[in-house]
C-alpha cells in the first residue's frame, strides 16, 4: 500500500513534494480544500489527513499558540523554564504559550520560540521589544576546534570562491577515488548508527535506478545537541559541498536537506547559500560547464522528532505519516520514492568534505579504526565554558569536561550524553571514559551525537525518568506496539510516582524496559530504556522511596 503512495508521490517529485504542499496548505491563512489536493494527485484523502495530523506544528491546538517554551532536557535541568513560561503567559495570555522540544540553545537555556524566531539566555529581558517585532542582538554560541587537524571548523570552505575551486578539482576526480578516500578515512555516520560512510556511497553508486537522491538529515532533535545547528549556520558550504559530491559519486541529480522547523536560522542560512550557489552555477544544470547537474532544495520539518530516523524522514517527504519502515530494503537500494537514496547526517556530510579537502590519512590518524577522526561535542550551560567544540576521537572525557569545558558552575551528579536516547553517565564514570563510540557502548552508554546534558546534584532522578518516558510517549511514531504502548505505560508509572498516588513496581518496570529494548521497531522507543536502565543501576538508592517495597 505504502509503495503505491510512494510511487504516486514520486510523480509529484521532490521540488513540490507532497509534504511541503500539505504543510504549506495547512499553515496558510486561506487553506485549499484537502480533498482537492488529494484529487489533483490521485491520492486518497485519508493519506493526506493521516500525514497532516501526524505533525505537532500542523495541529490547530499548536497554531493557536503564539510563543513556545523549550521543554528539552537541558532547559529542564537548568530549571529556567517555569519562570519563563509565567513571564510569557503574563504578556500573551494563559492559553497562548505552548511547548517545543529542544530549540538547540542548551548552552544558555531560557529558550523560547516566538513568531518564527528563537530566543534564549537574557533575551527574555527584552520581551517588550521582541513583541513589538524589533530585532534584538542575540548571543552566539561559543565554538572552537581543539582537534589535531580541524575538519569541521576550519575556514577552507567558507566562501563561494573556495567552493568553486574545490568543486573544479573534484569534478575531475575519479568517483572511485572519492569513495576510496572516504573508506580510507574510516569515517562512520555521525547520526548515531555509525555505518561507514564510504560504504554507503559505494552501495548507492552500484544500486540500479533511473533516478537517485541525496538527503541531508538535518532533523537534529536531540536535546543537548546544537552541533548540526552550528554546521548549518556557520559552515553551510561544507554541508552542501558534501551533498554535491555525494550526488556526483552516486549518480544523483537532486538532493534535499530536511531541516527541523525549530531551527529557523539554519533554514535561512542554508537557503541563502543555495541561492548564492545557484546564481554562480555551482548548483543547478551543467555545473561549471560539465555534464553534471545537481539541484538542491529544503524540506522544513513540522515538529516530529521521529523524522530524524531515516525511513520516517523519507516517509515524511513522500507525504505519508512519518512512521518508521522496516529495513531491509535499506534506503541505498529503495529510499525516497523507492529510488536509491543516500541519507547522511549533517556532520557526516561536513566531515566528508573536510576529509576530501584535508586528506583521508589525517582523519584516519586520529582515534582508532572504528572511532576515527574528529567529532563535535556540545557542552551545556552547567559548564563554565559552554559551547560546541571539535575534539579528537579518543580524548579522555575528563579532559573535555574539566579543561575544555572548564569544570562545572554548580555541583552535578550525572550527564546524559548523546541526546534523550543516550546513556546517563554518572560523574564517577567520566574518569574511565574516552570519546569513543565503542567504549561508550561497551559500558552500557551511547555516545550518539556527543551532546552533553548535565543533571544537577539536587535534581530528582525519578523526575528525569518521567521526562524521558514523557518524551518517548509524545514522540513515538505509534507504529510498533511495544513502543507505542510501552512508553505510555512507563509514563503512567512515573506520573503516579510524581503525584504520590502509587509507587513504582520495579519488577514490572524492568520487564517493560526489556520488552521495549528487544521488541521495538526503531531506536527511539528501543533505546529509551538505555538511559532509564543506567539511572536505575547507578541511582537506584536515591529512588528507593519511589519504589514498591516487595519487588
Amino acid at each position, binding site marked *: 500500500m505504502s509503495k503505491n503512495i510512494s510511487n504516486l508521490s514520486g510523480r509529484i517529485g521532490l521540488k513540490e513534494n507532497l509534504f511541503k504542499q500539505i504543510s504549506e496548505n495547512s499553515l496558510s491563512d486561506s487553506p485549499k480544500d484537502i480533498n482537492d489536493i488529494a484529487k489533483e494527485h490521485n491520492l486518497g484523502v485519508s493519506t493526506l489527513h493521516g500525514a497532516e495530523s501526524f505533525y505537532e506544528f500542523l495541529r490547530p491546538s499548536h497554531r493557536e499558540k503564539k510563543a513556545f517554551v523549550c521543554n528539552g532536557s537541558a532547559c529542564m535541568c537548568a530549571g529556567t523554564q517555569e519562570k519563563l513560561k509565567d513571564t510569557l503567559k503574563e504578556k500573551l495570555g494563559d492559553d497562548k504559550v505552548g511547548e517545543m522540544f529542544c530549540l538547540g540553545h542548551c548552552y544558555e537555556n531560557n529558550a523560547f520560540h516566538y513568531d518564527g524566531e528563537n530566543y534564549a539566555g537574557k533575551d527574555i529581558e527584552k520581551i517588550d521589544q521582541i513583541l513589538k517585532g524589533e530585532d534584538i542582538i542575540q548571543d552566539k554560541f561559543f565554538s572552537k576546534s581543539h582537534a589535531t587537524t580541524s575538519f569541521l571548523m576550519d575556514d577552507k570552505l567558507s566562501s563561494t570562491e573556495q567552493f568553486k575551486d574545490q568543486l573544479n578539482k573534484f569534478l575531475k576526480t575519479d568517483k572511485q577515488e572519492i569513495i576510496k578516500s572516504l573508506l580510507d578515512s574510516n569515517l562512520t555516520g555521525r547520526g548515531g548508527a555509525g555505518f561507514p560512510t564510504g560504504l554507503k556511497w559505494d552501495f548507492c553508486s552500484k544500486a540500479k535506478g533511473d533516478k537517485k537522491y541525496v538527503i541531508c538529515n538535518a532533523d537534529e532533535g536531540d536535546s543537548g545537541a546544537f552541533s548540526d545547528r552550528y554546521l548549518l549556520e556557520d559552515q553551510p558550504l561544507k554541508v552542501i559541498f558534501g551533498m554535491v559530491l555525494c550526488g556526483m559519486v552516486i549518480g544523483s541529480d537532486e538532493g534535499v536537506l530536511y531541516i527541523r522547523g525549530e531551527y529557523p536560522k539554519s533554514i535561512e542560512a542554508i537557503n541563502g547559500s543555495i541561492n548564492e550557489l545557484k546564481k554562480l552555477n555551482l548548483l543547478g544544470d551543467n555545473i561549471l560547464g560539465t555534464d553534471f547537474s545537481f539541484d538542491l532544495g529544503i524540506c522544513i520539518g513540522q515538529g516530529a522528532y521521529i523524522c530524524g530516523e531515516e525511513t520516517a524522514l523519507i516517509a515524511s517527504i513522500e507525504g505519508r505519516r512519518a512512521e518508521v519502515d*522496516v529495513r531491509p530494503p535499506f534506503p541505498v537500494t529503495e529510499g525516497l520514492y523507492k529510488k536509491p537514496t543516500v541519507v547522511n547526517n549533517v556532520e557526516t556530510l561536513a566531515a566528508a568534505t573536510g576529509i576530501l579537502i584535508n586528506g583521508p590519512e589525517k582523519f584516519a590518524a586520529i582515534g582508532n579504526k572504528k572511532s576515527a577522526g574528529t567529532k563535535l561535542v556540545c557542552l551545556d550551560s552547567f559548564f563554565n565554558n559552554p559551547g560546541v567544540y571539535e575534539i579528537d576521537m579518543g580524548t579522555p572525557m575528563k579532559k573535555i569536561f574539566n579543561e575544555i569545558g572548564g569544570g562545572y558552575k554548580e555541583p552535578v551528579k550525572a550527564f546524559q550524553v548523546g541526546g534523550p536516547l543516550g546513556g546517563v553517565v554518572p560523574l564517577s564514570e567520566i574518569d574511565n571514559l574516552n570519546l569513543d563510540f565503542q567504549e561508550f557502548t561497551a559500558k552500557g552508554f551511547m555516545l550518539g551525537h556527543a551532546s552533553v546534558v548535565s543533571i544537577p546534584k539536587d535534581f530528582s532522578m525519578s523526575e528525569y525518568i518521567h521526562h524521558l518516558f514523557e518524551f518517548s510517549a509524545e514522540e513515538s511514531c505509534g507504529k*510498533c*506496539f511495544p513502543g507505542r504502548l510501552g512508553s505510555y505505560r512507563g509514563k503512567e508509572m512515573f506520573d503516579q510516582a510524581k503525584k504520590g498516588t502509587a509507587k513504582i513496581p520495579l519488577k514490572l518496570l524492568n520487564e517493560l524496559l526489556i520488552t521495549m529494548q528487544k521488541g521495538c*521497531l526503531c531506536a527511539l522507543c528501543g533505546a529509551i530504556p538505555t538511559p532509564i536502565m543506567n539511572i536505575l543501576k547507578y541511582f537506584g538508592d536515591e529512588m528507593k522511596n519511589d519504589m514498591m517495597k516487595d519487588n
Partner: protein
Amino acid sequence: MSSEKRKIAYIDGKPYEIGANHTSILKFVKSYVGEKKVPTLCDDPNLAPYGACRVCSVEVALEKDGPTRNGCLLSYSSC
C-alpha cells in the same frame, strides 16, 4: 535454491525443509505447525509485511547476544 542442496531449519528441535515459498521465518513456521498456531496481529496475506505488532519477533541465536528481529520479514539469508 538448488534441489541437491536442501536447506533445513529446526522447529522445536525437529528438522524441516525450507521451501521456495517460505520467504520469511514466519511463513516457514506457519506452514509446518499450522496457520493458527503462531500468533500474529498485523500479519495479513493480502498486505506486504508491515512489522508493527512485533508478536512474531525472533532472536538471532547464531550470533552472540543476537538482535531480535521480525519473523515476518526475516529471510534466511539475513540470519
